[in-house]
């Protein structure tokens, strides 16, 4: 793990940006979460936003109230206290996230933008399966759906979760982004770029490989659905998402429930032990899925 030296830097006069490592890993994300959670608890005057991200974090502040150097000083202390985040426990939730893989909408989109892709002759799934050493796309889909993911960052646009799979480094999927970004991506598209799976919260431009479409929203500005009662955004950093491939009929059922306002995500409370995940991810993942689907 690259604990060498976090890079502390000013993002202009209103932000402090801390890059914990250049490379993504679960352990560095746990550190980012542990540090930002601790910072939130301290409720320091002058901080307006605390944004944990994959292998880094960012704090927005009012420099008239809190000098950025003063904050950095405190962040270094917190970093030392957190250390390698051994024993990091996260009070979180496990969520069933239904996704229809190889759906007609993202398929239509990816065909339209073939000229911007590394491999215009293959679909995004076929290409990604091949470069990640899978025999075929079904095998690749099984790997994506086989183990749960941690939400490691929210942003780009409101509500979009970046998800990193809870598997050992050798099993992590890695794909390039499109050669040139698309000008269109359907709402709720399930995509992949670098080492991260995402659900596009809204329609718009995008450069991630497209694999499928989520059945339910991650952003609900009208807050009509129960899961959005407290926030227009559903995902939270540290959530554990299990993407589950659903067929057209279940997709349609969920869509109808989203439309009539009765949809609720399947959610179970969970205390996540980082050490156990790092030591034996697969058996811990079975336990996580047992909690989610066991009853």
């Amino acid at each position: 793990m690259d604990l060498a030296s976090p890079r502390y830097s000013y993002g202009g006069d209103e932000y402090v940006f801390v890059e914990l490592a250049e490379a993504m890993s679960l352990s560095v994300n746990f550190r980012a979460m542990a540090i930002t959670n601790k910072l939130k608890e301290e409720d320091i005057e002058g901080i307006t936003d605390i944004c944990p991200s994959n292998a880094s974090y960012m704090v927005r502040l009012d420099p008239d109230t809190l000098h950025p150097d003063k904050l950095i000083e405190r962040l270094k202390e917190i970093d030392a206290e957190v250390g390698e985040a051994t024993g990091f426990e996260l009070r979180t939730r496990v969520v069933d996230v239904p996704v229809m893989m190889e759906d007609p909408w993202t398929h239509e989109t990816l065909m339209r933008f073939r000229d911007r892709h590394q491999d215009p002759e293959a679909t995004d799934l076929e290409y990604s399966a091949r470069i990640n050493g899978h025999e075929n796309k079904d095998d690749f889909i099984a790997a994506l759906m086989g183990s749960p993911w941690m939400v490691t960052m929210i942003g780009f646009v409101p509500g979009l979760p970046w998800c990193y799979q809870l598997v050992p480094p050798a099993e992590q999927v890695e794909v390039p982004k499109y050669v040139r970004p698309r000008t269109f991506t359907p709402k709720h598209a399930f995509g992949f770029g670098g080492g991260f799976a995402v659900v596009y919260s809204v329609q718009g431009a995008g450069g991630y490989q497209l694999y499928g479409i989520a059945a339910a929203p991650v952003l609900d500005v009208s807050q009509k659905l129960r899961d959005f009662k407290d926030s227009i955004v559903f995902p939270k950093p540290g959530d554990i998402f299990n993407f589950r491939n659903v067929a057209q009929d279940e997709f349609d059922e969920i869509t109808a429930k989203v439309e009539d306002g009765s949809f609720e995500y399947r959610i179970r409370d969970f205390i996540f032990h980082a050490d156990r995940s790092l030591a034996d991810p697969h058996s811990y993942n079975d336990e996580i899925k047992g909690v989610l689907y066991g009853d």
Partner: protein
Amino acid sequence: MAIKVRQPGLLTTVQDSGRIGDYALGMPPSGAMDSFSYAVGNYLVGNGDGAAGLETTYFGPELEFTEDAVIALTGAEIPPKINGEECPTWEALQIEAGDVLSFDYLKNGARSYLSVAGGVDVPEFLGSRATYTLIGLGGFEGRALAEGDEIGVGPSNNSSSHVGKKVDDKYIPTFGKEAELRVIIGLASYRLTEESMEEFLSVEWTVTPDADRIGYRYRGGELRFVEREQPAGAGSDPANVVDFGYPVGSIQVPGGVEPIVLLNDAVTGGGYATIGTVISVDRSRLAQTKTNDKTKFVSVSLEEALRARKENRERLAGIRESLG
């Protein structure tokens, strides 16, 4: 009291001081791009800080007032006219019911602000009336104004006492076709080669037609990234990093040839290396640049940025005081 939109102009949106505190959800601040001109507009008409107004870009709208109002126009030089007669800017003006406000062609700058006593009244979204143009939230139905819209105005007290108040010339900014923007180098600037960083800071960049509330793109140089084996999770392009947060004002260079400064409605994070951030004070100046204008980026320290911030605050306080 309402403002009827006869013609919307190129891009006229409801803006205020922005939506602060939801960046971690992926929600950018939006709000007035030239926060200086916007703030002064509110002082002129006697509004509290943060009252919403209209931001107009390049080509002004044509607006009809249904009742008497007190207004002020600040920011870019887009000569305003009331019922066809040219009227002053940076001054509180009396508007009579039925008056029509229109604009002549843009002379200098890019964005003009219409402040109206009582403030533009649209529903608040997450504590702000600002329009977030990228995905269409906040402001007036989440979008730029269109022909036929009627925009409400909030109640105001004693606004006619402000009529005739004007900003002293010494405080009024001028917007030439060349801008110097102060930048704090940092973030993932280690990804650029030393020569490229020098080039970034010495080249005279040209604002491209891709310049809006989301970001400004520039052309004029070619920058190179330090060669490395791409780290896990980052993706294969040398401009790619493991996706991280983008400060407002941060500069990224996808492809090496087109620096982008991310602005009020931008994406809040992503996977392109950022190399520095335009300081908050100079974003008001940036907002008054337009396509084909020239821009130089000048490296400053945090202390210089904080001093500029303090001077800006004092200038605003001076204006407020001078207006009584």
